[in-house]
């Protein structure tokens, strides 16, 4: 048996086996740190190991078990050090010919590991202590880091997000998912020569004027026969023609007399869709990475792909923050405003096939944490966590702390882009989180630029690219040291810059369907100038 063992103090990210064993069964086990240890609520567990001996012991156990349960390969990764709740402490993968040996070896290995392998759970770490440790650690990762440029932030996001595992589902349920397989045509389309008119089929080059009607073919009929000169077949629109090399004369262009017809007007068109005219058998119809819209789903149906392999539905948790926010159906008190970000996120996510959970958090950090505790299972299984507001550095801005408390490593917290300088991006194994600036325009721009890029990557879709287009009107802008994304309306004439004064503006959102990208320190731009933009 091929054995691979690793003891690490880093998060366990790789999965599966490094070689292909043509196994009939692959059994995987992940041991996860729970939030209770000896009845005490914890946020992390510290493990200690005598690593060289632990590796030897694991190898010895696996070798002895392989005599009883023959398997092809085993891979074990045990993490030690401080492991946050919800993260993997041990990962085991067994490949075997059949599931029986794989399950048996895996189960027995775990039992023996817990008896003999010198690794110890040392202590549960309660939230407060853990927070401080995390803060110290995270201060290494991004504190003092200059705000990222737009392209650098996008590159970070792209490198930290990996496509989620594919699922095979019914075509009817696949709208909005991303196709994860190449789909080829199983047969020619159309599969036979067919008539595009109600009329009479004759040989293509038959110069005769009068024809004998020898058959009638409706749309669902299949009546192959070789036509001779001066013979015609009555055909309906869509009917399969009885042989190749025929034309169809529209019924309006003949005079019929019993079972004979006479052509009275000559047409240029043959009124036939030829076999394979649109698609040849085995031709590639769709590549992986296409998002399934109505047209794509119709093509999949035509290709007989009734259960496409697609991206999974994304699980998203969205939290709004700030005591100044009231629900849209409430009247704001002095100093308060209505929440527009919840509906904005709901709308923005509609194109991404998501299961969305939304919740407003109180401004008190401890209260916010206890509200999240109530949603623990949703939060822990979410692929994406979005927090609107609280991303800045004010006294009550706790988004960063909250994400760190949830075990996220903060990759960046500031971008050199306006609107939307405070943008937090964090990762926790294969989960990601964004802290979005609360102002509506910043919120909107940051979603389209950054969150959408992450969602596209997780779904396995091709990234959206900036396009080039012309300004219809002058864009009045004061030079700014930050790259600017300017709301615009795109129509057939080109790009119309929209008026906005601050990142809190909301009226321009109703018309915005594009964002114009203005380079650093570039002032006003004249009408007719070509600029970069993103369609949204």
């Amino acid at each position, binding site marked *: 048996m091929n054995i691979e063992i690793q003891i690490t103090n880093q998060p366990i990210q790789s999965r599966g086996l490094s070689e292909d064993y043509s196994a009939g069964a692959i059994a995987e086990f992940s041991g996860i740190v729970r939030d209770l240890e000896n009845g005490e609520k914890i946020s992390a567990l510290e493990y200690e*190991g005598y690593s060289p001996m632990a590796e030897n012991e694991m190898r010895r156990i696996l070798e002895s078990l392989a005599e009883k349960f023959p398997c092809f390969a085993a891979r074990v990764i045990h993490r030690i050090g401080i492991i946050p709740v919800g993260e993997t402490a041990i990962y085991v993968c067994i490949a075997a010919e059949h599931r029986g040996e794989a399950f048996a070896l895996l189960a027995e290995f775990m039992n023996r590991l817990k008896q003999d*392998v010198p*690794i*110890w759970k*040392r202590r549960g770490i309660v939230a407060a202590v853990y927070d401080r440790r995390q803060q110290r650690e995270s201060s290494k990762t991004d504190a003092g880091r200059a705000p990222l440029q737009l392209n650098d932030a996008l590159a970070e996001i792209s490198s930290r997000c990996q496509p989620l595992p594919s699922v095979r589902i019914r075509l009817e349920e696949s709208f909005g998912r991303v196709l994860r397989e190449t789909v080829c045509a199983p047969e020619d389309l159309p599969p036979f020569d067919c008539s595009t008119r109600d009329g009479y089929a004759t040989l293509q080059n038959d110069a005769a004027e009068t024809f004998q009607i020898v058959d009638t073919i409706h749309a669902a009929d299949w009546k192959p026969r070789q036509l001779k000169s001066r013979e015609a077949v009555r055909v309906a629109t869509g009917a399969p023609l009885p042989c190749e090399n025929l034309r169809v004369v529209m019924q309006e262009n003949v005079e019929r007399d019993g079972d004979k017809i006479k052509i009275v007007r000559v047409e240029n068109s043959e009124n036939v869709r030829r076999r394979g005219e649109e698609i040849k058998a085995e031709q590639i119809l769709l590549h992986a990475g296409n998002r399934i819209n109505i047209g794509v789903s119709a093509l999949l149906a035509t290709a007989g792909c009734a259960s496409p392999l697609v991206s999974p539905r994304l699980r998203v948790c969205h939290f709004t923050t700030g005591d100044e926010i009231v629900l849209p159906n409430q009247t704001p008190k002095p100093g308060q405003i209505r929440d527009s970000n919840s509906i904005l996120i709901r709308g923005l996510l509609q194109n991404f096939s998501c299961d969305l959970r939304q919740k407003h958090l109180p401004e008190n950090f401890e209260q916010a944490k206890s509200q999240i505790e109530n949603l623990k299972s949703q939060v822990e299984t979410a692929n994406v966590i979005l927090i609107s507001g609280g991303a800045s550095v004010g006294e009550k801005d706790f988004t960063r702390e909250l994400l760190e408390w949830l075990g996220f490593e903060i990759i960046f917290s500031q971008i050199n882009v306006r609107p939307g300088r405070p943008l937090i991006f964090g990762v926790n194994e294969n989960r990601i989180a964004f802290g979005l600036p609360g102002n509506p325009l910043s919120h909107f721009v940051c979603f389209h630029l950054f969150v959408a890029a992450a969602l596209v990557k997780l779904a396995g879709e091709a990234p959206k690219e900036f396009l080039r287009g012309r300004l219809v009107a002058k864009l009045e802008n004061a030079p700014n040291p930050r790259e600017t994304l300017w709301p615009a309306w795109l129509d057939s004439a080109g790009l119309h810059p929209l008026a906005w004064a601050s990142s809190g503006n909301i009226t321009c959102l109703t018309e915005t369907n594009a964002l114009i990208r203005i380079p650093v320190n570039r002032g006003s731009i004249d009408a007719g100038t070509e600029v970069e933009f993103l369609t949204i």
Partner: protein
Amino acid sequence: MRVLFFAQAKDAAETSELEMNISDDVGLEEIWEKIVAEKPKLAAFRKTTRLARNGEYADAKTKFSDDDEVALIPPVSGG
């Protein structure tokens, strides 16, 4: 001989390792006695804690020498 302490044994010994001099061909019981002589608190661990010699569990027949690395392995709790 280098002696390594882990987990609760490390807490009790208040150190993670210790240097000891022994003569060759020493048995398990003698090693324990020497360790407890150095770290009396470890006496309580004798019933539950196994010894490892150079990364393998030792038993009653194992003979130790001065070049060995010995580890005290309290009940494990990995996974």
